[in-house]
């Protein structure tokens, strides 16, 4: 499905062995690998995948001074992949995420589920208690207004994780060995870790968007998927996807588009070091207390009719309102503007085509 319309964007710093497990599901698709860290390191990509790879040197070459908006030494750099892609849809996945199994033991084709989510409407204006009404076997419940049953276009599909859940550092420290489990967990069988639902996050509601297993309509919402300034030289990490999620949700709400969450699950294998995470997240834990009320109260003017306009307006408001919290937000706001400029440059009809430095690996 959609093999010529979707790119898979993977940030990596070590190797891409995990692709071996995904082969049956990913081999048909084009990959965009964004290599973080030392550009002289050679990343090993399993044979048979069609990909383009960008390291820091490529990013600097392609964007010139605008490369300042792309994070270094943080998986936030993945958003460079969104920018250079020419496809309608993006699926992004972390290199420590593997194929999960559903409660029947069947392997989950996460990409297929994301595509189903994106190709079917969302229901942001009225909550359906039977969750996604467009899924087989589901429907709208009694009382659901008929005028809303066509739904809204889906911009984002946010998938979940089995095994190691996406907890913050304080929670990781308090609950060291917990897996994502439900109360009927039986050790001898596949535990029911699995919530068999896709749902639309209502309009006006923010959520923590995790970038580990995420798909979106790049043509619609791509310019808002900036993963911010994290990592090397920055006072914060592990808030890249969160930041993008708050911006994306505000803009989707403004534009009348839907954001779905739930299936598909992937298997998250690696628990990162909670002490390292705490250092990265530390400022974020305090700053999010300011950022969230900010995003909850933002109203974008009616005149903002494109995502780029919305995003630039957001950048302005971030500078004005959050700049007072910490100068980091002024830097971030600048990064947001640079991102849009770079996006326009690479994606407008007259813009320079990004050279793909590596081709197939056959």
């Amino acid at each position, binding site marked *: 499905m959609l093999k010529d319309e979707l790119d898979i964007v993977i940030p990596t710093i070590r190797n891409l062995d995990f692709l071996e497990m995904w082969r049956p599901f990913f081999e048909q698709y084009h990959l965009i690998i964004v290599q973080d860290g030392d550009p002289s390191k050679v990343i090993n990509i399993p044979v048979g995948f069609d990909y383009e790879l960008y390291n820091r040197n490529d990013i600097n070459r392609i964007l010139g001074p605008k490369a300042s908006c792309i994070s270094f030494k943080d998986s936030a750099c993945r958003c460079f992949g969104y920018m250079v892609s020419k496809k309608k849809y993006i699926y992004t996945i972390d290199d420590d995420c593997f194929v999960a199994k559903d409660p029947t033991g069947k392997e989950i084709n996460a990409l297929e589920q994301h595509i189903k989510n994106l190709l079917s409407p969302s229901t942001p204006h009225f909550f359906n208690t039977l969750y996604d009404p467009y899924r087989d076997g589901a429907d709208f419940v009694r009382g659901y207004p008929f005028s809303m049953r066509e739904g809204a276009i889906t911009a984002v599909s946010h998938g979940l994780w089995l095994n190691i859940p996406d907890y913050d550092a304080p929670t990781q420290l308090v609950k060291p060995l917990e*897996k994502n489990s439900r109360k*009927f967990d039986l050790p001898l069988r596949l535990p029911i870790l699995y919530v068999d639902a896709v749902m639309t996050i209502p309009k006006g509601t923010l959520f*923590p968007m995790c970038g580990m297993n995420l798909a979106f309509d790049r043509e619609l919402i791509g310019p808002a998927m900036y993963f911010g300034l994290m990592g090397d030289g920055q006072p914060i990490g592990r808030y890249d996807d969160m930041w993008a999620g708050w911006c994306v949700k505000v803009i989707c709400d403004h534009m009348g588009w839907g954001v779905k969450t739930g299936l598909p699950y992937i298997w998250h294998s690696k628990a990162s070091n909670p002490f390292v995470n705490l250092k990265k997240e530390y400022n974020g834990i305090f700053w999010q207390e300011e950022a969230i009320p900010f995003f909850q109260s933002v109203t974008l003017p009616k005149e903002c009719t494109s995502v780029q306009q919305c995003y630039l307006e957001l950048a302005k408001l971030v500078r004005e309102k959050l700049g007072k919290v910490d100068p980091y937000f002024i830097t971030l706001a600048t990064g947001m503007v640079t991102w849009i400029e770079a996006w326009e440059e690479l994606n407008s009809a007259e813009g320079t085509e990004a050279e793909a430095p590596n081709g197939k690996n056959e």
Partner: protein
Amino acid sequence: MSSAEINKNEVDIVIGALNADLTQFLTSWRPFFSGFHLIVVKDPELKEELNIPEGFDVDVYSKTDMEKVVGASNATMFSGYSCRYFGYLISKKKYIVSIDDDCVPAKDPKGFLVDAVTQHVINLENPATPLFFNTLYDPYCEGADFVRGYPFSLRSGVPCAASCGLWLNLADLDAPTQALKTEQRNTSYVDAVMTVPAKAMLPISGINIAFNRELVGPALVPALRLAGEGKVRWETLEDVWCGMCLKHISDHLGYGVKTGLPYVWRNERGDAVESLRKKWEGMKLMEKSVPFFESLKLPETALKVEDCVIELAKAVKEQLGSDDPAFTQAADAMVKWIQLWNSVNSSARS
């Protein structure tokens, strides 16, 4: 939390009897109803005597009791599916659990019968999280938690006002949908409880519901009555309207509404195609209700549930009254309901 940990004395199970023979219903629920006090309210339009099996701690109320408590003219407020609201009115407990009399316990994917009562009470006892969506759903359930990026200041949650359960087999679909998909049955067991975010509207079904009566009792209003209201769910909207009011008031007061587990197994009753023959005015009323609730803002000064209901009734009359007489009647019923609530509950206290 297991059933051993719930305080059964805090709960009333309120059943609206639209069928006279409650034997099968109560027998199937016996494992989960035993130890609880039951309030069975008979639809005043039901002529036959109720058939209730032995062994339950149950009080039964019929038309005569209604007339004694609220007067003959007000007793009409409690006909059909609305009879259960009389039970809500006279209950003295903290929590109410209400299940339609055509539902039996469901089985979970492991084949165990679901204790819907316990699950509802657990939902009500634990905080809700309406201000920010948790992508792992209920953060208080064993094995789950708040995810990365969830603001710490919001992690203690807010009181839970209502717990909306779901249905396997015959889901609560409307008549046109069920008539179109005659064979469709809900087989999907979604193992989650979640809070419906603040400001989000939803259709709350009365088939399998529980609420904190002490917190929001007066907000469950028996108000909207369809002209052709019938004795099957396809021919009512009273619970959906009640739910819109309840959600709006909960949002205003900073309480949460949960949805998801528990499931009940809902049986066949009635005929969707038959119900379709009636002119389905419920559809039109819902369409008018939505923009009303979307733009409604209760005054900051409305701090008590009763005041919220009165303000809501005022707004309904002003803004929707001219659209359809059903709305004017609903507004009047809401005001009357609060009068009755205050009089019944203050005399109960004195």
